[in-house]
């Protein structure tokens, strides 16, 4: 065992990369849940995004087109969920599960023949002087563009929810769809847009996994990342900046356990691999044990079906 082989600078730098997929997916889901919809299909949309992005970028040779395809793929899949839950008023929990099961099958189907291929490489962004700074340069300023995009999206979502009229309407729909409907807002339309955004973000997160983080395609490669993203939204008590904190915490644990495995710590590798899931459960318990906080921030109409009777 050689713990000195773990370089803290590289560790923190790779932490940002490891947390980006779930951060993207969780940011999307945050908007969905703020609108009062619980979409448990994040895992399915992520993996669909992963293969759509991978396939498109291998075919075209462009990672950017890959990410675009992932956005389209994730959003398209989420529209199935939108149609079923918003127009046909099906149970959101069951439909979300169906979306995950379907997404896993569909992605494996599309992904045939892509196993073992290499996607076109994505270069780290060249930030000139900033990237050359000692320590900080390596940790913060030497990543690919998507890492910064994900940070920008968190900021955007925060500002959208806090400062814009549209954000206020979205929250109103999530808190009380009856009241929002009475005020003349199109509940179903607003929720469909939120669901589509959630799908696009989950797809983007999945593509980050298959194009940059891994980078490769294997069946079921998201390995629960979508579920962790869902847990993250609860952890963040539906607030964007806490999402960032949670994602980095989770990314840190993932990277640390991988490094410990590589360093040959005298703990079975399987146990280390299970730690991200165990820590997620632990965090969920801590959050939900605090009754006042959990109840305060959850959208009041989360998961309820809306049917305009008049």
């Amino acid at each position: 065992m050689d713990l000195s082989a773990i370089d803290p600078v590289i560790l923190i730098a790779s932490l940002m990369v490891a947390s980006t997929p779930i951060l993207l997916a969780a940011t999307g889901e945050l908007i969905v849940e703020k609108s009062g919809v619980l979409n448990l299909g994040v895992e399915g949309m992520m993996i669909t995004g992963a293969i759509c992005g991978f396939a498109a970028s291998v075919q075209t040779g462009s990672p950017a087109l890959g990410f675009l395809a992932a956005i389209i793929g994730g959003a398209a899949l989420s529209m199935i969920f939108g149609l079923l839950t918003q127009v046909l008023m099906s149970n959101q929990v069951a439909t979300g599960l169906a979306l995950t099961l379907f997404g896993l099958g569909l992605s494996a189907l599309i992904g045939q023949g892509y196993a073992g291929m290499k996607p076109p490489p994505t270069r780290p962004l060249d930030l000139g002087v900033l990237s050359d700074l000692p320590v900080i340069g390596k940790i913060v300023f030497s990543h690919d563009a998507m890492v910064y995009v994900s940070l920008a999206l968190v900021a955007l979502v925060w500002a959208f929810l806090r400062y814009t009229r549209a954000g206020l309407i979205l929250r109103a729909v999530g808190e009380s769809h009856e009241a929002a409907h009475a005020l003349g807002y199109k509940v179903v339309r607003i929720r469909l847009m939120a669901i589509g955004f959630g799908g696009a973000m989950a797809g983007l997160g999945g593509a980050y996994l298959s194009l940059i983080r891994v980078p490769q395609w294997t069946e079921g490669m998201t390995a629960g990342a979508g579920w962790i993203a869902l847990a993250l939204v609860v952890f963040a008590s539906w607030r964007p900046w806490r999402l960032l904190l949670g994602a980095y915490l989770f990314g840190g644990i993932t990277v640390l356990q991988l490094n410990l495995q590589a360093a040959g710590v005298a703990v079975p590798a399987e146990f280390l691999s299970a730690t991200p899931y165990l820590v997620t459960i632990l965090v969920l318990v801590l959050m939900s044990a605090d009754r006042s906080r959990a109840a305060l921030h959850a959208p009041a109409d989360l998961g309820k079906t809306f049917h305009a009777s008049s």
Partner: protein
Amino acid sequence: MIRLEKRPSPSRVWTAATPVLAVALTMVAGGVLFAMLGKDPVAAIRIIFWDPLFNEQFASYSRPQLLVKAGPLILIAIGLSLGFRAGIWNIGAEGQYIIGALSGAGVALALYPLEAWFVFPLMVIAGGLGGWAWAMIPAILKTRFRTNEILVSLLLVYVAEQILAAMALGLMRNPEGGGFPGSRNLQQYPAAANTELIANSGMHWGVVAAFVAVIAAYVLLNRHMLGFQIRLTGQSPRAARFAGVNPNGLVLFCLGASGALAGLAGLFEVSGPAGQVSIDFNQGYGFTAIIVAFLGRLNPVGILLAGLLMALTYIGGELAQFMLNLPAAAIQAFQGMLLFFLLGLDVLTNYRLRWGKREIA
């Protein structure tokens, strides 16, 4: 313009008709999917739904497989349906299935090579307890800390998979296996083997347990106070509270029962058809059982039929893989589609379609 009008109570006709309609629509949509993959859609549907049962060449092999595959699906789905009815979502049956199998197989491997009548019954108890204990984690977290049972039970699947890998590579590895991962083959340990009860029928103890579970669940839901409380809680949690239902007790019961049944399914699989603990021992029965539970309308008899149908798509899917080179994933997507159609069509059960202009309220 079509308008939806809520029915005062769900339509009985549509409750029974939607699964049938959903299967029919899935066949059509699946045919389109298979055609897009460049396969003959009619042949594919025939191979999946007809040939396993009636083709002279394959039926002798496939028919027993029907019960082998349906057994665990029904067993798990019956357990899940109890919780689903009460709005308690255990979606980690896959994990409980793995832990049940590991507990049961652990007993067998610890007692090996003892030949005694009590080995198999002990394994059954251990398997059920293992699954029960794994489901108690989300149950206790839910009742004590109000932690979301959906996320916890699902995340525990990944933990269980890691434990399975650790066991297959470490503690339970066959000492005479030449270093290959995987345990001793329980089929070759007579006291622990879950053998076919009637030759070439596919009938093993797991299938018997599944039938018993169907009957027990039917009696529970229709004749027992607890079953009434489960149904009441599903329809109106508030009313159930006033009627004196203890919500925490219900969570413990529903998650515990579904965990124990999933654990039993795992045990019967590891000691029977699978034979040994291996890294990829679990085949996703725990997730497919969710589809079975919904397809069977959360009704014990319905689940029995749905389990058989789902088993058919598994076997037919394998056959189509072999005959048409249809990818295995296509069947998974096909099963997911079935659930979509079912959930979508349910609108007809709960709402009435009205044609004509929207009148002014």
